[in-house]
């Protein structure tokens, strides 16, 4: 390592610090008393260090208000959507990658065309459909529109295509059926791809804003992402800045932890989602 390397790292630490300031500030404000924040947000080091320190905002958050319920809704919706996406994407991806059957190419083209349709182009008809069925204000209303997503099928399709044929053929000779091959041979091999797809879906579900905004009108069915939007409009007056910031921290915690633990998968998932869908 030469001198210019250390200069580079030093030079980049400054923008990296600036990049981190907004997040640090949110965390720091969430640990400061509301009475203080009503007067000033820059008591120690521009407010970046939480002195005076108090955990009261978090205690209040879990004792009163709807944040815990929203958090639970987000968990149910995100986990439910992730499991459903995995189920339909692995099955369809395997069939399209490894089996021969009529209408295969038209089905693949139909899926490809689905990549072109953004959520924002179908949210109005989905709203009227769900209104007719009485589905709004429920967990399944938030889950179902994003279950059969082409990107998931293509992610799995590409993965299954890359597996050598002879693995299957050995099993075929022993008289094993296609569904058994899928379940006992292919799925265990597909774990890394499933992990990538799971993280992509979980992040999307946790962070989605537009569809929950349209579909969930009762506060009991808000996700944390939507709930956070509903309390930030009047942040200073209603609940105190510190408590709103604590809500923001709680809302970010799962995705940040997920990112820090599975960084490589998250990066792969987001680039896969980015380049192909």
């Amino acid at each position, binding site marked *: 390592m030469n001198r210019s390397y250390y200069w580079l790292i030093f030079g980049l630490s400054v923008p990296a610090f600036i*990049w981190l300031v907004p997040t640090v500030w949110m965390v720091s404000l969430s640990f400061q008393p509301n009475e203080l924040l009503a007067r000033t947000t820059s008591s120690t080091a521009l407010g970046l260090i939480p002195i005076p320190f108090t955990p009261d905002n978090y205690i209040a958050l879990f004792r009163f208000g709807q944040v815990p319920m929203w958090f639970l809704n987000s968990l149910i919706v995100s986990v439910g959507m992730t499991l459903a996406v995995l189920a339909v994407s692995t099955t369809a991806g395997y069939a*399209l990658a490894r089996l021969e059957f009529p209408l295969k190419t038209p089905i693949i083209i139909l899926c490809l065309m689905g990549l072109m349709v953004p959520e924002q182009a179908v949210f109005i008809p989905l709203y009227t459909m769900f209104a007719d069925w009485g589905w709004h204000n429920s967990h399944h209303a938030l889950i179902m529109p994003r279950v059969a997503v082409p990107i998931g099928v293509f992610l799995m399709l590409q993965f299954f295509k890359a597996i050598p044929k002879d693995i299957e053929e050995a099993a075929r000779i022993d008289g094993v059926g296609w569904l058994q091959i899928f379940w006992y041979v292919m799925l265990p091999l597909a774990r890394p791809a499933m992990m990538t797809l799971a993280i992509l879906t979980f992040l999307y579900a946790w962070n989605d804003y537009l569809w929950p905004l349209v579909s969930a009108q009762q506060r009991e069915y808000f996700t944390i992402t939507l709930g956070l939007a509903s309390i930030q409009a009047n942040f200073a007056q209603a609940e105190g800045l510190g408590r709103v910031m604590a809500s923001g921290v709680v809302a*970010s915690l799962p995705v940040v932890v997920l990112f820090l633990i599975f960084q490589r998968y998250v990066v792969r998932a987001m680039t896969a989602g980015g380049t192909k869908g």
Partner: protein
Amino acid sequence: MPQHQGARLVLSQGQAAAILLLPFLTIYAVFLVYPFFKGVWISLHDWNLMAVAFNPDAKAYVGLSNYERVMWGSNITWGAWASPAFQFIGLAGAVASAWLYRTGRAGKVTALAMGGAALLLFVLPGFHPGEGGRWYDRRFWPTVGNTILFVGLAVPGVTITAMLLAAALDGETRAKAVLRTLFFLSQVLSVTVVTLIWQIMFSPRQGLIANLTQLFGGSPIVWLTAEGFAMASIVIATIWWSLGIAMILFLAGIQDISKDLYEAGALDNATGAKAFWYITLPNLKRTITLVVVLQIILHFQVFGQSHLMTNGGPNDTTQVLVRYIYQTAFRDSELGRASAMAVFLFVIMGGFSILQFVLGREKDQ
């Protein structure tokens, strides 16, 4: 044909495929294919959300008149100088893409796409109401213009920052890995967390930026409600939020560049910034195009930043297309007109998706 083989039922390939595909195809048909066509169908009707909710027959087929009411007006004429800023950029872009293609700096698809988009930018803003004429919907085209402006500011901002960072942070050392993580972190936050943070960052009374300017004796700017600053604010928040993916794509692109090129360059004294300019940049062309197209698709659908930080204001200067669709549908209850705008959005997004697909294909060859 099911055949009995021993005691077990063995399915043919076709039957197995049908069973495996059925769940996906059913859900896909009900929640994506059908809504898509229903959206087009709604756009051909005078369809009031409330009225139809009470009486399903309270809608009337009106043909294309929703599209006319949204996008057209009375006495519309065309002029080459109706909207000089946009049209000049469009014309310049068309010339630039022709030049890039001629000199071999851009591929055929890239040049065609760039030229096409630039020509549209020249032609479309040229339409304007003539003597005594007016747009039927005064807000639609300005909204589209704001969306394009937002994309035009955010995309170069993200692309250039991400490219420089990727070039500097490529490498296997621990310090670089930590820095990459820091820059990527904000990408995983939800839009509502991002707007929460930046709304307060920009606040003239409590904001960190205001506190900083006061520290240096300046007076705080009312970022989110001052014309000119509001758009800048949501662009800054967006760049901060969405830098990560672009940086990762550039890192992948840089790792594909042969190390031999840099070694050869080092012999000619090309290191650091010189190496970036003469080696990295020319070899990143395809990645740059991909990142730009990707960002255009992503940011054209901007909603949360405008909806939560500025409410589309001040004076509609940060009103964007998706927010206008949302409001037309769910505040004004005009589902027909909102759907016409959604179809418009789909056509633009579809065009860029096809472009993205073609570019991705080119890469594989």
